[in-house]
Each structure stands twice: as C-alpha cells, then as structure tokens.
C-alpha cells in the first residue's frame, strides 16, 4: 500500500484551472521529483497536500485512509511536513538556533511554560541528534546561512515524526557544495523510510536523488520517468512539444554592439568579467539565487553601481546614477517581483492597466501636465491587442488579471516607447505557460534593441535567448552556446 495516493485531484481559482485531474503515488521511502513549468500546478498540489488549500474534487489517501487536511497543522499531525523555499521564515532572527528548533514545541505546549536555557538546549540537542545534523545551537538564527536554515527546517520536520517531507526548491539558494551536502541528508532520510516529494527545476538535483520523476503540465500528470531519468523526454513532457522547437534558432545577422562591459566588477573582491551584447540580440543570464544576476541588472539601471570596470552603451561611457538617468539613456528595466517593483496597490490611483503602462512615460505623453487626453488609453489598447492581454478594457484594474497578463502589462510598459537596452529580471515569475510563450514572442520580435534577461531557470533561459550565460559568485562564466547541451545538464 503506497504512503500517499492522490487520485484525480482538481482545483480551480475563478476561471483558472490550477489542477485538472492530477494523480500521484508516493511509496514509503521513495524520493519522487515533481517537475513542471511555471503554472503547471506544482505549488497547488503541494498546498493541497500540506493543508494550505482544499481540493475541489478527487481523493487523497494516506496509508489507505482518506486524508484531507484542513490546515498545515493537521497535515503535520498526519506526518506531512513542507519545507518551503524561503527558509528565513523558519526562525526568528534575534532568537537562537535552539529556539528556532523548538518553535512549534513552544506553540503547542510541549515545552513547559517556564523555560530555562538548559532545558531548551537539551531538547534542541535531542532534536538534532535524532535528525543526525550538527548545528551551532547558541548562534543567532539570523547568522545562519541558507543551507543551515534548511537543515533547521528539516530537523524540525523530523521532530514532528514526518512520514512525507515536501521539499520546495531546496537548492535554489545553495551553493554546489551545500547542495551536495543536502543530497546526503535527503538520501539519509530515504534510508530511514521517510518519503520525499522533491520539487525542483534543477536536473542535477533530480538526477542525484529521484527514484521517480512525475511531470505536471496544465494541472495534470502527463508523464512519469523512473531512474535513470531521461531529462530530454522529461523536459519535452513539461513544455509539451519537442525540445528543439523550444530553443530558438540561433540568429545571425546581428547589429552593432549596444552594450559593452569591460572588466566589470559587481562587488569589491569578486571576479571581473566582460560582456558584449549586440542590437537585436536576446541574452539570458542564468545562475542560482544570489549569484549576482539581479545585481548586474540593477547596476545597469542605476539603482546600484559597479565596484569596478566600465560600461559602454552604443560606444559611449555609461554610468547612470539613478533610474531616471538610465531611462534618459534609453535603458529600461522590468525588475523582479512585479508586485513590489512595478504595480500600484489595489484600489489606489494608478492601478489600471493604462496607468501601469503610462507611469514612466507621463512627461512625454502629457507634456503640459494635464491628463485630459486619452493618450494612455490609446497606448494601452495597442498593447492589449499586440500582446494578447486578456482584459476587458484599458481601465480595468491590474489586480483583476492573472499573473501572466500582469507581466504582459509590465512588459508593455517598457515596450511602449523605443529603448536601446531592455533589462528583464525574472520576467517569468508566476507566469503561466501560455502567457510565457506570448511574452517570449514579444521579446524576440523587437530587433531594434538589445535584451538582457536574468532568470534562475535555465530552461526558460534556453527558451527565450539567443545566447545563455551563466553567472556564478557574482561573475559571468566564460560563454556557452545555447545550442550546446552543456548548460541544460549542469544547471537546468
């Protein structure tokens, strides 16, 4: 009898079907990798398993018994524990590691009301011994690196007698060395009969760990692969068409060099690197979280500055002091996390599609300051038609749109006026597969400028770019060609 047997689970949000009949079986002591493009339904499935959301229909059985946890606490009581990607929420910055380990003991009353440093330490040490890790108990939680925080989260999950551990992108912020330590930990769990549902974009992780990989697409499980996993087939199943079609044809006939970086240094003490990007070219920079991709883009946009080296735009020295100067030079950026970086809050002036697009262009579109003409409405109508934004009118709130359509609006903002260099930081965050195709087509269609994209997802990078570069430790690695399979194997 399998540990978990999910059958035909469905879940919709409004008109969006996140899960359309997904099934998944996990045996005891098995490591199952869950693969899928953004919007394929991975996170919804995890949320249903861990009690954050309920399924609309379908059955979940655990050890043969029906199981429908209503809250994360109920799921944990049944032995399903999730370790989330953002592990900074695991502990409280000013408290110690021991406190972080005992946090749920404090909450559920397993610890006595009055605490002594000794009793806390002893229980925390017990938890660590049971998990088989070594962590500095007296250190402040805020001083722990992401890898150790992950261990805290896993140790805590084990202390809750977890039978199924869900790891959501656990290696996203880890170095290669830390990741291989995590592999050992996960394989150790497997040896103790604990099942692991492993969600990751990285083929390296999945190749090292998974007994089986299940691929979700459009809210359904479309394929399963057993060890050794055929990743080309798995990725083809993820994107729903042959891999060759997913990679753009390498385009020759490029224009002049638009952006040139010479011996640039992102931070003091990090390695220097060069970069040349030509007109009409789309270049993607990939690498793990914290590798310095965002830093490079924000230095080009004037919100940070290079520690050394020189940048040239169309042959002229380029060193913007702030975004306004970058914009004046024709450099535009859609920063990561559009909610924070691009959108106005709900019910606030400027929340409409038209106003979202027009914000940087107001001086040009309304030179006299008064906003009575319909310029922004016209521009928004053009964008809606061109990018296929699913909206009823340009004056609709941006918050009524899906993530993919929101991202199209943000892209439309920066395409509304001609630019020399378009910077996109994680442009496919929370974007469904369909919208992603439209956005990729739009990015590639405009050859009058240069596009630089930062994405931690190598698969996305290959899909959108003419050239894929890898960033590591705040420096660009020497170039790969996008038609070589190497980056996919190492970093996909």
């Amino acid at each position: 009898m399998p540990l978990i047997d999910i059958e035909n689970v469905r879940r919709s949000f409004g008109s969006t079907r996140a899960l359309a009949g997904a099934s998944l079986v996990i045996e005891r002591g098995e490591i199952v990798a869950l693969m899928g493009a953004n919007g394929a339904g991975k996170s919804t499935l995890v949320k249903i398993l861990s009690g954050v959301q309920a399924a609309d229909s379908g059955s979940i059985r655990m050890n043969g018994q029906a199981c429908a946890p209503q809250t994360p606490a109920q799921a944990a009581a049944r032995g399903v524990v999730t370790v989330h990607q953002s592990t900074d929420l695991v502990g409280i910055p000013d408290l110690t590691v021991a406190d972080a380990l005992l946090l749920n003991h404090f909450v559920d009353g397993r610890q006595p009301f009055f605490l002594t440093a000794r009793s806390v330490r002893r229980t925390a040490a017990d938890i660590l011994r049971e998990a088989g890790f070594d962590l500095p108990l007296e250190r402040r939680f805020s001083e722990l690196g992401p890898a150790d925080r992950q261990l805290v989260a896993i140790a805590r999950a084990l202390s809750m007698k977890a039978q199924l551990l869900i790891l959501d992108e656990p290696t996203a912020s880890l170095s290669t060395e830390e990741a291989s330590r995590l592999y050992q930990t996960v394989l150790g769990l497997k040896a103790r009969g604990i099942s692991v549902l492993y969600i990751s974009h990285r083929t390296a992780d999945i190749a090292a760990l998974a007994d089986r990989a299940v691929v979700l697409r459009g809210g359904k499980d479309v394929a399963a692969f057993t060890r050794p996993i055929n990743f080309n087939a798995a990725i083809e199943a993820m994107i729903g068409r042959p891999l060759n079609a997913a990679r753009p044809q390498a385009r020759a006939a490029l224009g002049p060099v638009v952006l040139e970086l010479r011996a640039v240094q992102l931070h003091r003490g990090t390695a220097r690197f060069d970069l040349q990007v030509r007109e009409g070219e789309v270049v993607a920079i990939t690498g793990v979280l914290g590798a310095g991709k965002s830093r490079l883009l924000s230095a080009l946009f004037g919100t940070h500055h290079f520690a050394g080296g020189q940048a040239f735009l169309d042959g002229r020295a380029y060193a913007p002091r702030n975004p306004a100067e970058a914009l004046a030079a024709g450099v535009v950026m859609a920063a990561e996390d559009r909610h924070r970086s691009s959108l106005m809050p709900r019910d606030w002036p400027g929340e409409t599609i038209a106003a979202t697009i027009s914000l940087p262009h107001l001086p040009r579109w309304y030179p006299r300051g008064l906003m009575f003409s319909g310029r922004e409405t016209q521009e928004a109508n053009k964008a809606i038609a061109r990018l296929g934004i699913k909206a009823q009118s340009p004056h609709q709130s941006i918050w009524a749109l899906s993530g993919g359509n929101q991202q199209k609006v943000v892209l439309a903002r920066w395409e509304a006026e001609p630019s020399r260099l378009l910077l996109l930081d994680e442009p496919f965050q929370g974007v469904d597969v369909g919208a992603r195709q439209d956005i990729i087509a739009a990015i590639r269609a405009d050859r009058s400028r240069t596009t630089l994209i930062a994405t931690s997802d190598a698969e996305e990078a290959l899909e959108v770019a003419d050239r894929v570069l890898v960033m590591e430790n705040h420096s660009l690695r020497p170039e790969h060609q996008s038609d070589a399979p190497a980056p996919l194997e190492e970093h996909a």
Partner: protein
Amino acid sequence: MSEISQSQAVPAPYHRSTADVVKDIIRRGAVFLLLGALFILFTAAQPAFLTVNNLMSVLQAVSVVAIIGAGVTVTLAIGGFDLSVGAVAASSVMAASYAMIVLGLSAWQTVPLVLTFGALVGLVNAFLIVKLKVPDLLATLATMFLLTGLQLIPTAGRSISVGLILPNGTTATGKYDPLFLLIGRSSLFGTVPLPVVLMAVVAVALYVLTEHTRFGRLLFATGGNEIATRLAGGNTARIRTIAYVLSGTLAALGGIIVAARVGRGDVSSGASLLMDSVAASLIGFAVLSLKRPNVLGTTVGAVFVGVLLNGLTMLNAPYYTQDFIKGVVLVGALALTYGFSRART
C-alpha cells in the same frame, strides 16, 4: 494603504444585476445621500436651517478646516501624514498678528510673509522626512511641538492684540490692517463670504492637481509604491517635498483666514484644527467609496460635519456634544469605507 496583496486570477464579471448596480450607487453615494437626509431632517425641524445666510455660515465655518484638510490629503496621497498643520495654522495666526501689530506691516506684506512661513515649515518637515528619513508621523509630530512652543516666545506667552505690552516693557504701536481683516470678513456679492470663495478655489485647484495632472498621478504613485515610482524614473524625494510644502502653505492660508476673522492673535486659536482637518480627510475616504485620500472627499467631509453641527446646534444640542458628534461621524465613515464596502465588484 501601501500594502500590496497577492491576487488570484479571477476575471471580473461581465454582467451585473440591477440590484448590484443599485447597491453600488448606494455605496458610492452614501455620504451624499446622508447629507441630503440631514438637509431634509433639519429643514423639517427648523425652517431657518435652509436659508442662504445659514448655509453660507455653515460653509464659512468649515472653510478653514476644508483648506487645511486639502493639504493633509496631499500628504496622505504620498503615503505620509502631516500632523503639524494645526500648529502651523495656529502659529500663522500669531505670525500674522505679530507682523501687523508689532512690526507694523501691511496686509500686502503680511500675507506673503505668513504663506512663506508655512512653506518653510513644510520644507523643514520634508528635510526631516526625506533627507533624515524620520518617519512622517514622528517628524511632523516633532515640528508640531516645536511650533506650539515657538509661537509663545516672541510675546512671552501673551495673546497679540492692539496695545500689546512686549516682553521688554514697550507697547506695540501697530494695528490690524483693515484690508487684512477683509479676507475674513467680506463677502462676494454680499452673499458668499471670501473664506468660502478661497475654500472653493483651493478645492477645485487641488482636485484638478491631484486627479487630472501628471503631478497628481506621481503623488499617488509615490504613496502607492515608492519603489515602483522610482524605478519608473520618478523623483520621489522631490514629490514628497512638494507635498509637505503644499500642506504647510495651505495650513498657513488657513491661519491667515482665522486671524482675519478673529482680528487678534489668540494663543489658543487653532486648537481643534488638526483633529478636524484630519477627520475631514478620513471622512473623505468614504466619499464615492474611494477608500483613499481625495480632495473632493475631504471638502465634502468637512461640509458634512459642518452641516451636522449647525443643524444640531439649531435644534439646541449643547456645544459640548460637538466633539462627540464629530467622533461618531468619523467612526461611521470609516466603518462605511472599510467594513461595508468590502465586497468588490
């Protein structure tokens, strides 16, 4: 206000039933409907309520609050809050009186001087908030204290009227310029008091500025998401500075009107101006169910409170119930804004 929430992909419904449309009208027009109801009620109980003279006296009574409230609204729009407006208005009363009675200046000199004083206080606020990064509430609270104390120093704590004895023992020789007094005491065409005209001008000008100009869009953009505004090339430091300067200047204008009506520099003038203008701005959130600062709403909010107080006074409600009534209106308006309009269409 600046919280950004995650949204699910729920498309808005295409068709709305008649009941929904009626509900929407009631929700958006609640303040106007209530205002209409008050008019009917007060006129039925006391026919003298609905006379041009009485209505003008209501508007005159609220004009200062509405003008200062418009400034507060601008600071709310940038996501800040100007707590110093009451103190700016009060010290403007003192400054105007001092300028004329002690320094012997004319109305033509006094008015620009006092407006400049208000603008300078706004600059100080902006310096604290934008350059030194002091949180808005704390910075303006500090300037409020500063001004409340500062206005007492030149006269050693005395109110300023003709024949004031200065701290050095001499007697002030100046007097209020009659032209200055006209600001508070004259009427357009003999019916519309000048303060009401000023209120209307400020309301219309700031309404257009905030809702129909590029600058207004940037004001709200700064308040809604400062990071996004900066990344879109906006100079948010300058925008925030202008907002505080506007607020300080309008508060000084309010002070000038008070001084011109009272004709003396009373140390206790303007005690309730801060609370009243903030209340008007917050009541304004409920107008048209906008749930955000808006100049039109602030003006309507001030008028609403004025009508209610005037009517109740005519019905012999004692003066000491006034603050209580204002409180009830504010609580009601906020409940209406946030509680009953939660269902989104």
